[in-house]
């Protein structure tokens, strides 16, 4: 019997649990020739901010053992150009589309969501709270439960579409942050965003990335992501979406067993554009071999 791969986030039904992570798949068209995006459950756009942002000075990426650092710096054309140039093609997608939203103040987040709500045509939002809050001394929104709850509540007032809060692992207690998002009315949390990291080139005696530090992603961080997901899934009742270092179906199964309802593939797409599709096929085959009917049945298997 073919397993039922559908999963529900808020009021939205995704065809399957595999998504393409924000910042690694552009706005969906760049990988057109290589990936059949329509087979994927959800596409998360590169972060959109109120004003256009050129992004950080290069170099912006560097490889690390089993991972990579990036300091792209939210490079994006801004909400206006996003709506004019990117949204039409995204609207035509058969998979669910979540816009990843970023800002430096609460108002900026709200305005992006309001503008997209008026334009219509997307399925939901993923709120990137790893950005430094300029009003609060530059510490990221995502490290303070009170700020998270407040921001989520304000966003909740603006949209009935699914609202996902994306958690950063750079905190002492990810469970309390997940709880704050739930209290603020989020429909789901996704975790993890990148870990703060730095690579220094001894021959030049300076950091490889122009910005100094960057965000660590890829297989190197997978154990951290699975542990965060496990904790978050036990802290909240809303769905948890797991990501970090997924390159094979077994990696995604680790997240689903840890309690995630869905997963995302990020850096894995860079390594092999077919990654998300083969992860999806692998999950389905694994469920079929074990006679599991639904995605929820996976998490129920875990014996800890």
């Amino acid at each position: 019997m073919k397993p039922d791969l559908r999963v529900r986030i808020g009021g939205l039904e995704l065809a399957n649990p595999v998504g393409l992570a924000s910042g690694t798949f552009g706005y969906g068209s760049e990988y057109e020739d290589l990936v059949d995006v329509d087979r994927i459950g959800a596409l998360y756009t590169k972060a959109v901010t109120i004003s256009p942002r050129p992004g950080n000075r290069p170099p912006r990426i560097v490889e690390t053992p089993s991972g990579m650092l990036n300091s792209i710096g939210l490079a994006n054309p801004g909400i206006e150009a996003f709506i004019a140039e990117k949204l039409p093609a995204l609207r035509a997608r058969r998979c669910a589309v979540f816009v990843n939203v970023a800002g430096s103040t609460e108002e900026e987040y709200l305005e992006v969501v309001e503008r997209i709500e008026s334009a219509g045509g997307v399925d939901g939002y993923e709120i990137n709270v790893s950005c430094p809050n300029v009003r609060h001394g530059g510490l990221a929104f995502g490290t303070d439960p009170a700020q998270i709850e407040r921001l989520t509540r304000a966003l909740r007032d603006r949209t009935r579409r699914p609202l996902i809060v994306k958690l950063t692992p750079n905190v002492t207690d990810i469970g309390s942050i997940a709880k704050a998002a739930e209290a603020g009315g989020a429909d789901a949390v996704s975790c993890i965003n990148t870990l703060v990291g730095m690579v220094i080139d001894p021959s030049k005696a300076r950091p490889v990335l122009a910005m100094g530090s960057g965000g660590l992603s890829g297989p190197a961080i997978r154990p951290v992501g699975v542990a965060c997901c496990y904790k978050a899934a036990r802290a909240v009742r809303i769905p948890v979406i797991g990501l970090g270092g997924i390159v094979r179906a077994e990696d995604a199964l680790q997240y689903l067993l840890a309690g995630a309802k869905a997963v995302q593939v990020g850096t894995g797409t860079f390594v092999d554009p077919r990654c998300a599709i083969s992860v999806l096929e692998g999950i389905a085959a694994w469920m079929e071999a074990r006679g599991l009917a639904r995605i929820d049945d996976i998490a129920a298997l875990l014996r800890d």
Partner: protein
Amino acid sequence: MPFVKQFDAEIIENRPVTESWRELVLSWDGLAETPAPGQFLTLRVSPYSDPLLRRPFAFSGFVGRAAGEAPRASVIYQIRGGATRLLSELAPGARLDAIGPLGRGFPQPGAEETPILAGGGIGLGPLLFLASALAEIGEAPLLVLGLRSLSLLPRIELPEGAVLCTDDGSSGFRGTPVDWISRERPESRPSGGGAAVRIYGCGPAPMLAALSGLAGDRGWAASLSAEQWMACGVGACMGCALPRSGGGFLRACADGPVFDAGEIDWKACL
């Protein structure tokens, strides 16, 4: 946009051309589009997670489907770090996950333009490919190659009339390709006409900056191929940013790697 494909390429040859350089020939059986000079492919060199990311390499040649033989694409690469070391250990018959052709290649020279191809280091491959493509359309392009020393000259057939420049004077002209061009080709833009010369440049960042400066001074056109760290290679990640003249950034992989000299702030790339 050209049509890009991912396919399982077979290694036909992987031959040393100097101590630390190899020429790789792949069976391009996944052919979707014929690669143009200046375009590149990305290779996944290991099924393990270190090294992790695909690596970009410019085409150094391409032979279309001949009677009974699959098309072949070639690459000339330098062993620099982990991925190229691993690549150099692969034997003919091994298979590689390849994606291409990617990026924007070199434009054709204008009717009035004399092409001068200048480069060094890992720029050798794409310039050789361009030279043979130009020869096919009846041009006799001048290739000016820079090396640190004669001992680094690759065992590869160079086009007739190629000029060799060595930093140590161990062979050919002592100096850089830019030095040679500055001295030997003093002409500048003919009054009223198009550019007399189009520079095609590929090599280390300082050479590109110097070529851009020279072309600017002389009023020549210049098409320069830039290098930058890449993650996706298809324009999705914004990782391969290059500083655009006048602000902002362009993507090496999708907007380039070949740019008109005026598009990029080459000094800021140093």
